[in-house]
């Protein structure tokens, strides 16, 4: 029975910018939540502020700015390697919460020059007004914030605009961290394919047909995973979907592995916060929180084992081993900050940011992100730093 209920993840194909996997033994709601989180809740960096020094191209400033914003930037390990500007202590942006890029192209040839994402260069902060210190910068990869595929000749660059002789484009950009709920440019996914029940055994849908449904409707490739139903098979009206076929395609800012893993982690965080918020105030500082965390710890553990089962992904297995412990810590931490946090849930939301920040930082072993201090609207900004161990890509 345990095998039946334990979630299973089976990776069918892993490419540079897409991963195809099957998720089994989970609720439809859970599967869809994973899909939604991957699409909309993972932080990446994208150009958010553009300062125009010179623009003599034919395109208006705001249009070029918009195009720049949509260029995917390498955002590996984004939730640790950079802060949200709103959480940062700096006044006008600093190296902890933003990446500076510059583009300066002028055309002196008779031919049209294509200004592409390859012309965007990351520039170091000169007048960094960072007030405090942190290890964010140390957690960045070498090409953090660079346009995706910049040093890779096999990746065609993204066209920004075309300029002719005598025209010039000189812009200074500030890339910031954000999520796709705010703007689609921060979405790491270009498309998330999602399917269940390819034979429509559950009869969730009804196929419209002219003469014969079977000949007119193409069956998807995912049907190979399932048994072809017999014609006389009785309809099981209690059946629920439990096998979901995913294909996550990213724009390159995050690797597909990272998208899936961080998506799951993000979902956990959200649920943890929800649990925390649902807890009565008097229980908040008791051991109940830890119990709650433990209960939730089961599912990820099984899941991580599944990932670990894949020989290629040895590194992830380590993360899996850690996971119950992680959750324990996470739960404890939640409890610690719960005293302040739960009142925020029940009453005034404003008290969350200020009071929540300090207990979180003091309790968590490696927590420096200040994620709990989020003044952001959703109230669950950032993920616990512990979870990122072991699978930094």
């Amino acid at each position, binding site marked *: 029975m345990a095998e039946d209920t334990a979630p299973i993840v089976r990776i069918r194909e892993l490419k540079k910018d897409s991963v195809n996997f099957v998720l089994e033994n989970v609720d439809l709601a859970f599967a869809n939540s994973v899909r939604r989180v991957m*699409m909309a809740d993972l932080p990446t960096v994208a150009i958010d502020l553009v300062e125009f020094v010179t623009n003599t191209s034919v395109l208006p400033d705001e249009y070029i700015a918009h195009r720049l914003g*949509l260029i995917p930037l390498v955002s590996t390990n984004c939730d640790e390697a950079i802060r949200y500007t709103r959480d940062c202590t700096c006044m006008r942006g600093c190296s902890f919460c933003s990446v500076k890029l510059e583009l300066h192209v002028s055309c002196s040839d008779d031919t049209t020059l294509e200004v592409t994402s390859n012309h965007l260069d990351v520039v170091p902060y000169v007048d960094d007004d960072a007030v405090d210190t942190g290890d964010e910068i140390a957690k960045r990869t070498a090409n953090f914030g660079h346009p995706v595929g910049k040093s890779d000749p096999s990746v065609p660059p993204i066209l920004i605009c075309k300029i002719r002789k005598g025209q010039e484009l000189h812009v200074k950009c500030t890339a910031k961290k954000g999520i796709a709920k705010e703007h689609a*440019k921060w979405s790491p996914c270009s498309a*998330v*394919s*999602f399917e269940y029940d390819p034979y429509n055994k559950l009869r969730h*849908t009804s*196929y*419209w047909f002219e003469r014969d449904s079977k000949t007119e409707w*193409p069956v998807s490739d995912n049907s190979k995973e399932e048994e072809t139903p017999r014609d006389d098979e009785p309809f099981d009206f209690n059946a629920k979907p439990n096998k979901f076929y995913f294909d996550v395609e990213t724009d390159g800012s995050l690797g597909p592995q990272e998208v899936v893993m961080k998506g799951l982690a993000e979902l956990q965080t959200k649920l943890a916060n929800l649990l925390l918020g649902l807890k009565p105030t008097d229980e908040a500082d008791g051991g109940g929180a830890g119990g709650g965390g433990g209960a939730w710890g089961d599912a990820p553990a099984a899941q991580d084992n599944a990932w670990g089962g894949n020989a290629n992904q040895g590194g992830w297995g380590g993360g899996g081993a850690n996971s119950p412990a992680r959750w324990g810590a996470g739960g404890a931490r939640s409890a610690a900050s719960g005293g302040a946090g739960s009142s925020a849930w029940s009453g005034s939301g404003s008290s969350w940011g200020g009071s929540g920040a300090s207990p979180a930082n003091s309790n968590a072993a490696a927590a420096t992100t200040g994620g709990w201090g989020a003044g952001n609207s959703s109230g669950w900004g950032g993920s616990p730093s512990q979870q990122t161990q072991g699978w930094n890509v």
Partner: protein
Amino acid sequence: MSSAELVKHHEEPEEFGGYFVINGNERLIRYLILPRRNHVIALIRPSFSNRGPSYTQHAVQIRCVRPDQTSVTNTLHYLANGSAMLRFTWRKQEYVIPIMLILKALVDASDKEIFEGVIMQDYENTFLTDRVELLLRSFKMYTMHTGSQCLEYLGDKFRVVLGLPEDWTNDAIGMWLVDKLVLVHLKSARDKFRMLLFMLRKLYSLVSGSCSADNPDSPQHQEVLLPGSLYGIIIKERMEEILNAIRTTINIDVRNGANVDFNDKKYFAKVISRVNFDIGAKLSNFLATGNLVSPTGLDLQQASGFTIVAEKLNWQRYISHFRCIHRGAFFAELKTTTVRKLLPEAWDGRKNLCVQLDGAVIGWARPAVAVQLARNLRIWKTEDMNNVPLDLEIGFVPESEGGQYPGLFLFSTKARMMRPVKYIPNSRDDQVGSFEQVYMDIACTPEEIEENVSTHVEHDPTNFMSILANMTPFSDFNQSPRNIYQCQMGKQTMGTPSTAIQHRTDNKLYRLQTGQTPIVRPGLHNKYAMDSFPNGTNAVVAVISYTGYDMEDAMILNKSAHERGFAYGTIYKSQIIDLKDVRGASKSSTPTLHFGIGSDIRLNGENAHHCKEFVDRDGLPFTGARISPGDPIAAYIDDTTGRTKFIKYKGDEVGYVDQVRLLGTDAGDAELQKIHITIRIPRPPVIGDKFSSRHGQKGVCSQKWPAVDMPFSESGIQPDVIINPHAFPSRMTIGMLVESMAGKAGAMHGLAQEAAPFRFTEEDTAIDYFGKQLLAAGYNYYGNEPMYSGITGQEFAADIYFGVVYYQRLRHMVLDKFQVRTTGPVDPVTRQPVKGRKRAGGIRFGEMERDALIAHGTSFLLQDRLMNCSDYSTAWVCRTCGSLISLGYEDVSLGETISASTASQGQRSLQPTGPGGEYCRICRAAAQEQDERERQAVATGQHLQQQQGGPPQADINVAISSQHVLGSRGLKGGDLDVVAIPYVFRYLCAELASMGIAVSLEVR
């Protein structure tokens, strides 16, 4: 100029001209529908019988055109007594002449000649012989027998009207009249005579019912007034006016006894200098206003609206200005709709017959001969033989019982509507006109050719459609009105108006920044190079009712698609700043205002003026500056005060300075006084903006859902646009469904799909063609896909029609239309809120709205809307007389009271006032009067008459309930109350009082 040269000169690379640039606008002369020239049409109009006694409703009419394109219309009216009257117009005045007078005057014709000419051997036709006899008899009363007698008679009668030289004989004037006003397309009198006989014959035939009336609203009897012709006509008339003016000047000189010497060049120079020679000004006025100022009216039915501005809203609108033909201003005012009927001839098949060429009778032929003649001419013209031109129109009208008057009518003049088709017998190109094609059998497609019936075949079945109509993909699948709607909406689309936007100075330009070429487009899209002017975006469209926000033609946009630039648009607006028009500018030639920022404005340091973000030191705005309403966009220094002043941005939206143009003088030697600023206003799509597909399916964006909430297909594709399935059943725009399939298949296979109409048949259907492509791409044959709810992840109970449709963004945007008001400006007279969006006014809560609230019983809301939120005011009302407008004040605060007028008697020194010193002037005056009368009664010892003083009786009584009484009765017996009333009511009372009507309020 070549395209490269045009671009070098900052023009459109495909500029085709055809317009005049007037005050920065591109104006063009419209094509106008006119009656076909030199062709006799039979008319039956009941209004003709009102022209005079014995006039009937029958007439024939011909619009005769001279070689210089000026025209004269001659109408031949049938009279009840069998005779006919010729009507023409001279200087906007109508004249009628008996036809016999003209016939005789033309060729000195004998009665027999006329009789034979009309009857043409058809002696059995007693109807005809009787009429002609009556015609001839009726002329006997004039006792004129010879042509010269008739000419003299005409000359005598028209001498004053025509204004010809006084020394001309009556004979000459008569000749001139016949020459210049009767059948002017013909030169010789004999031709005119023959044509008049033909007209008479046609008229009698119309009266007898053997031929039917012609429809003047049918393109068969219409031609087009070409801009060049109109322009030439106007020039001719102006020249005529000048010559007349010269003659008048000389006449005056002669009469005044001035020195008139025709051999003296100086004298002529003097005369000419006194005459206004400015034809150019007259023509530019015509082009700028479209108004025709003419003493003759030029035989046209309208005097204004000849020119229009070619709006560059988008390319489709622009190009349609050059292609459309106007039906005339009178058409728009017509109440009947019969003229709007679509006639088959608008689509692009007896005894001796009359053969006419351009309205001249060139002979008579038997029907068989006429048919042969027509066929020979047709072959000659298509094969370019015997000098028969290709554009000859061979209108053979066969004999019929009560049909159109038969004959062989040839037309070779200009301004006719013609179109190319293929002549089947020799497979050559042929040009077919609107007159002849009614009697021709033209097959639409080669498959439709019928043996021995079809003579012609269309080059392309889409030839009958305009450019715009041709741009609709699969329009043959749509219900026809939807295609018309699309033609309207294509012209309102926010697209690409021009490729030279940076060099244009239009007041307002709409531009779609993220335009795409349609995946599904008809072949003509490429032919007309529409790709240079993208007009919309290929949108992934799901036809599904989702979240309810797509009801009633609303559509849901994918917020993430919007964030990636879907349908992102821009408006360019212009503002001209001319220092000459600014207040304080000197009228003299040396300007006292100069662009720039003076030293009185601090630009550095802490207290720097905020203008430094927008305006440079030269007083001109920075390009690229972001400006909000009220921000300075230019600065100038006034010499007289030495101070710097700013000119503010007038718009009500945030924009960016796109360009600044310095407008100098032609010589370029004057100081800069005028600048032109182009402001770029970004307009991303917002809720309330209007979109449409190319099938007359318009909708308003009602919600923007984030991508995660949008439904998705198994492959993870999410729609950009969601529309409701209810948009289809009643509108039957199947073309849109086909486009959706074709777009999807085209996107999957990387094809630009051919979408011209009439390419598919019942056997070879579009569904099958695109369905197979979809199958090959792994989709369902019919374009459906199972989809999942983005919110729950559950598969929808039905599969969803999902494809790619080209969407246009229309220029109607909420940001230009929304109207909100809480409080704001009020009308100074009524103190009610003003109307109009521009003035921040309200929307009228009218009578019917009032009725609704009354019927609904929501009286508090009613009072709130109509009084408290409108013109609520408080007023003093006198309890005694009920007057609203009789308030007077005594300044109690100063301790003053006015004594009674008869203070000398010292009886009463104090008058009653309210606590604030208020009193009713009417009641006080009445009381004083009564007082006076009593005193006099006492003084004279007479009895007081029973004439009541008191307040005068009011004409109108209005009861006002106690809840409106705000203040209580005055303590000192002032008798005044404060009541709440609408301010207009007080105004009404004052107005009525000015007319001597008193209004009394009864306060309960």
